[in-house]
């Protein structure tokens, strides 16, 4: 059993310069968390990335920091989240714990850890802002909406994703850095037999813009009332709603609401 850390090497932009490439702060925090957990539980720490040969620089950095093994699953830099998760899950199957960064430094949707958990059929604790090792258990804090927090205990095999603030990656020793430069990196070819293929979208890349939400005209008798009606934040605008539904119905209801509010567009 090992602790597996999944990292993503990212070019700064599409035609990016590899000298400025690297892993996100969240991935660095994941690596440090994985190393600490492995040390505390007397396990080995393996670091995996799905990416091109240039990504091996980040794996060498991981080795220098103390990772026991590293593995690169050979794939293009723009491999999508589902395919990345599928490839990662293949090599995380026997891990006691999988630790990922909450976001990569490119698109950063944070979907890969959830997809890995789904593939492995394991529990997940995502978006963690604190990880403490208490004996054989991890006591973690998860960020919720509205400034709320949730404390969880992780005992069994699980997938975690951590934010960049959880831990600062240790500075590698000089000798380890020199050794890592000479290390041979294990590379496996991505078995694409079960890959999910998606047709790349032809639409041009642009920042995400939610659909405009229609706000009814204010109806107050005075200008002050009308301005208050638009800007007043002390009263509820009516979006908050608590419903108790079965998971499937709840998912449909969430999608329906997101669509109504303009956050999801018709595909």
């Amino acid at each position: 059993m090992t602790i597996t850390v999944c990292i993503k090497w990212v070019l700064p932009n599409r035609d990016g310069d590899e000298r400025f490439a690297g892993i996100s702060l969240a991935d660095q925090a994941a690596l440090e968390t994985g190393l600490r957990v492995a040390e505390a539980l007397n396990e080995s720490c393996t670091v995996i990335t799905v990416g091109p040969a240039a990504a091996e620089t980040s794996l060498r950095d991981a080795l220098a920091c103390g990772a026991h093994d590293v593995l690169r699953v050979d794939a293009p830099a723009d491999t999508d989240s589902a395919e990345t998760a599928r490839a990662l899950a293949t090599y995380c199957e026997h891990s006691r714990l999988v630790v990922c960064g909450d976001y990569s430094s490119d698109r950063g949707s944070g979907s890969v850890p959830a997809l890995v958990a789904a593939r492995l059929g394991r529990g997940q604790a995502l978006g963690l802002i604190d990880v403490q090792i208490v004996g054989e258990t991890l006591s973690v804090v998860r960020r919720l909406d509205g400034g709320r927090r949730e404390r969880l205990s992780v005992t069994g095999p699980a997938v975690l994703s951590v934010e960049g603030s959880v831990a600062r990656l240790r500075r590698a020793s000089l000798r380890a850095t020199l050794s890592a430069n000479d290390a041979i990196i294990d590379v496996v070819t991505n078995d694409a037999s079960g890959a999910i293929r998606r047709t790349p979208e032809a639409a041009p890349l642009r920042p995400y813009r939610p659909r405009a939400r229609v706000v009814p005209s204010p109806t107050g008798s005075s200008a002050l009332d009308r301005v208050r009606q638009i800007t007043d934040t002390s009263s509820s605008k009516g979006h908050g709603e608590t419903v108790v539904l079965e998971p499937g119905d709840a998912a449909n209801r969430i999608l329906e609401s997101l669509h109504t509010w303009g956050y999801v567009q018709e595909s």
Partner: protein
Amino acid sequence: MTAPAHDFDADIIVVGAGPAGSCAAIAAARAGKSVVLVERGPFPGSKNMYGGVVYPRILDELIPSWWETMPVQRWVVKRSTMLLSDTGALNVDFRANAWGAPPYNGATAYRPDFDNWLANHAVEAGARLVCSTTVTGLLRDSTGRIQGVSTDRPDGDLRAPIVIACDGVNSFLAKESGLYPHTDASNFTLGVKETLALPKHVIDERFGVRDNQGVDIEILGGTSGVNGGGFIYTNLDTVALGVVLKLPKLAAQQKRPEQIIAELKRHPAVAPLIEGAEVKEYSAHVIPEAGLEMMPTMVADGMLVAGDAAALCLAAGIWLEGVNFAMASGMYAGQAAAEAITKNDVSSRGLSGYTDRLEKTFVLRDHKKLRKVPHLVLSDRVQHKYPAFVAGVVERVFRVDNPHPKPGVRRIVREERKKAGIGLLDLLRDGWTGMRGFG
């Protein structure tokens, strides 16, 4: 490659992966020695700054046909010297299109590209490059002999019988080893540079070049009364514009270097060249400008100093060179260090092959020949009186002032010399120094 001797991590440690360090590493690694090249930046060149022209002829020995792979912005085919008075300018141009074809002469290049390219050659030669690592001091044995370096990394001591210090101007290693007796601020200038973005076709039109042809303009005057000079170099789609300012004068005048650049950019002879440009980068760096007079002892037991760390920068008015001296001194240091390891004598005597090479080649011969020129170029008269004097003479020679008849040139020179406050003896003395200095 031979294994390093017992108790050592390498045969040679090179500190700094700039042009000097990488060339030292290439030469030593190719001689079969175990080399570690330590760089403080995240990659070679990431921390480095210079005006923008490199003369790579010396690379013929290390990297044959270097021009085929070197990351060049433009090949310099036009060299100009510009003398600026407050409102006038005298521009002397020379163009040689042959410099735009192999084997070339000089090129503009970005240091992060150029230094990285050179360091990659060192790695290919067998040197081990370790980045993001700052050398913090020298390791010595109980007898005081240098045994390697300490770094800011955990477990960061690195041991080798020879250290080549290529850690740049104001070298802490050379100072720590006692090779620099003292530091005098008057031997240094501050170079500040703006990288200004313009479309390539605009640069081509304004500077009279095409394709990858480039221009190098050296400027005397235009530094707001602070002793120094200026420069303009063309890259593909940027222009490097900067000033070099003598430190004590800059401090005495209480001026900000960015103000001086802004004033240079507003000069009527400069403004049209950069009109509409967007500032992409501002950088500054200290330059060792006093030549031979400030050079440290180059060799100690177990240690060599090369490049800017050895003050090997030639600031002689029409010649402003540093990278070529860095590459050559680095290469010679690497060769001498490899020889010393082979002979098993890393004492200063065993390493003396380095100074022998420097003495026999352009590295020290140029500095010796031009030893008085840096002081002459940065002297008050040359800086503050001669540009206005020359511009005044040329302005009157070309001015058509009918119905007055043309005055004689001798009369113009005499009158403008007096107007500029230059004594005849001073003029003759400076002329003689210049003639002797420039050979």
